[in-house]
């Protein structure tokens, strides 16, 4: 394992994704992730790639589409309102089966909202926002090392499934500093190698061994052809639902309460669990790491003999709670603890609310 270094989240994310094979970045400044385009502007040219500041997030996602369709390994990052603008393009990338890595260092909404950390982009990231039937595997790390490890694997994962892969890291993770170990540089493909590594990519047909031309497209005006295409995409997505599920389950056996939380909020839940334990209340935690596909199977591990209530704990008005309800499937009451607008609860606040909910659930 490499030596640990103290790094700011956003810079560690950028370094990890370069080491994971990314060579191109297109972006537009937005808090709380502007350190990422700044880092890419300094680094990518030195490391055999290119950085381009786009005229808008719409421009950025479409540059991503072009570059990735031409075989480039592209990373793109933004924060909530910028991600909204990119979602037309994300739908297009999924439809055309063009890979890329996307990072949302999320802030608060709705609208331009505020710049403090928030988790109210859960729907945005897991439900699309772009039009049509499509899915983007999305991971929600809880610390910088976990984010680094996921972002390191994301570019090659995206290439292998020919679909974007996303990471949702709230602004807290982007702005904090933690010690991280950075993995080794993976192989980056040169323009000359792309034609062989990605035979579907636009390289000019002379570059291809078979001299066949490539067409990357989304439009299918014949309903039969479009249905067939979408069914094909969903065959892939169903396979990913089996392969990409990731979560952490903590202290579920004998628990009175089970918290469900991702990202920053899961760290607060872990603190709250210790305080509750001191007071004689056993609390467990399900921490989804993949938020699509959602780790519904983790909920089968709940101790239904002892657990009285499942509490979705979120920095939003309650969005993931929909998936929690589906996964619990009526077996237990599901309640919400939340703050929003950039307000972060203390662990004591979580403890007090959890105790009230537990009393009400007995």
């Amino acid at each position, binding site marked *: 394992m490499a030596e640990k270094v103290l790094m700011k989240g956003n810079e560690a994310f950028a370094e990890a994704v370069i080491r994971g094979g990314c060579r191109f970045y297109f972006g537009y400044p937005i808090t709380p992730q502007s350190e990422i385009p700044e880092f890419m502007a300094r680094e990518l040219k030195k490391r055999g790639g290119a950085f381009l500041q786009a005229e808008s997030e719409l421009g950025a996602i*479409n540059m991503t589409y072009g570059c990735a369709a031409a075989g480039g390994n592209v990373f793109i990052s933004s924060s909530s309102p910028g991600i909204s603008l990119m979602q037309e*393009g994300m739908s*297009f990338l999924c439809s055309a089966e063009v890979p890329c890595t996307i990072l949302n260092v999320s802030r608060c909404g709705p609208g331009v909202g505020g710049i403090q950390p928030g988790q109210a982009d859960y729907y945005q990231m897991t439900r699309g926002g772009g039009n049509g039937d499509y899915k983007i595997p999305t991971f929600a790390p809880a610390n910088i090392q976990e984010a680094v490890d996921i972002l390191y694997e994301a570019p090659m994962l995206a290439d292998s499934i020919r679909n974007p892969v996303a990471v949702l890291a709230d602004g807290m993770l982007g702005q904090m500093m933690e010690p991280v170990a950075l993995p080794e540089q993976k192989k980056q493909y040169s323009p000359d190698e792309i034609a062989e590594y990605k035979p579907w990519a636009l390289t000019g047909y002379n570059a291809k061994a078979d001299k066949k031309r490539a067409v990357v497209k989304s439009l299918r005006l014949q309903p039969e052809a479009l249905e067939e295409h979408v069914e094909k995409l969903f065959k892939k997505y169903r396979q990913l639902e089996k392969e990409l599920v990731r979560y952490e389950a903590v202290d579920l056996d004998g628990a009175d309460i089970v918290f469900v939380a991702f990202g920053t909020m899961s760290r607060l839940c872990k603190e709250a669990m210790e305080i509750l334990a001191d007071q004689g209340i056993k609390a467990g935690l399900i921490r989804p790491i993949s938020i699509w596909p959602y780790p519904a199977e983790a909920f089968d591990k709940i101790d239904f003999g002892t657990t009285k209530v499942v509490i979705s704990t979120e920095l939003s008005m309650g969005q993931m709670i929909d998936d929690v309800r589906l996964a619990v499937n009526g077996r237990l009451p599901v309640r919400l603890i939340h703050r929003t607008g950039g307000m972060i609860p203390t662990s004591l606040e979580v403890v007090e609310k959890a105790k009230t909910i537990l009393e009400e659930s007995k």
Partner: protein
Amino acid sequence: MTPVFTYTKGMTEVSTSYCPGCTHGIANRIIMETLDEMGKLGDAIGVGSIGCSVTAHQFMNVDMLESAHGRAPAVASGIRRAQPDKLIFTYQGDGDLASIGTAEIVHAAHRGEKFCVFFINNAIYGMTGGQMAPTTLIGQRTTTSPEGRTVEQAGRPIRISEMLATIDGAVYIERVALDSPAHVRAAKKAVRKAFAVQEQKLGFAMVEFLSTCPSNWGLSPSDSIKWLRENMIPYYPLGVFKEPEGLKND
């Protein structure tokens, strides 16, 4: 026997989906013929757009992709980063380029992106059934300007070539028309020049084609040609708006 005329390898042997008398087909063909004559079909990447030419990749025999409405110049800018040495072009209508895609075209020109833009100005939204475009002429009736476009309602038609010619990064800008054999020959020369600008990495190049839309203008193909000549050319003058010094053109 030496053939005097052959089918260009630049076009696939598929019938185009354009309406009879539509000059999109001529524009497609002269671009592809030029790449064929340059021996560059296998080193070219085309960026289609949303409009009647969305299916152009079925006819243009090069590597190609479809892009979302208006975004072709951003897509081409991205391709350029991954493929520094290929010949890249976009093919865009006037709704696509002059309305929804103005940010992308202006900034691609401004950055001096090294690709060619082929801009088909038919003064209307063809594919969606004849709505007003930013290029629709004053008095011209469309389904969304049923009494004819007025300045009060929609301002004056936008002259894209003149506008882009004010941008430093845009080094070659020419407007041509597809209304006569002489003009078509001139248009092909302009296409060749635009590719030469790109090959010599001089900057952003655009050719604007004045083109017909008989179906949505409600005119026969020959009346459409006449309408283009009598109404479009006076408002959209033909010619070279900008050309780089030192352009070598064989």
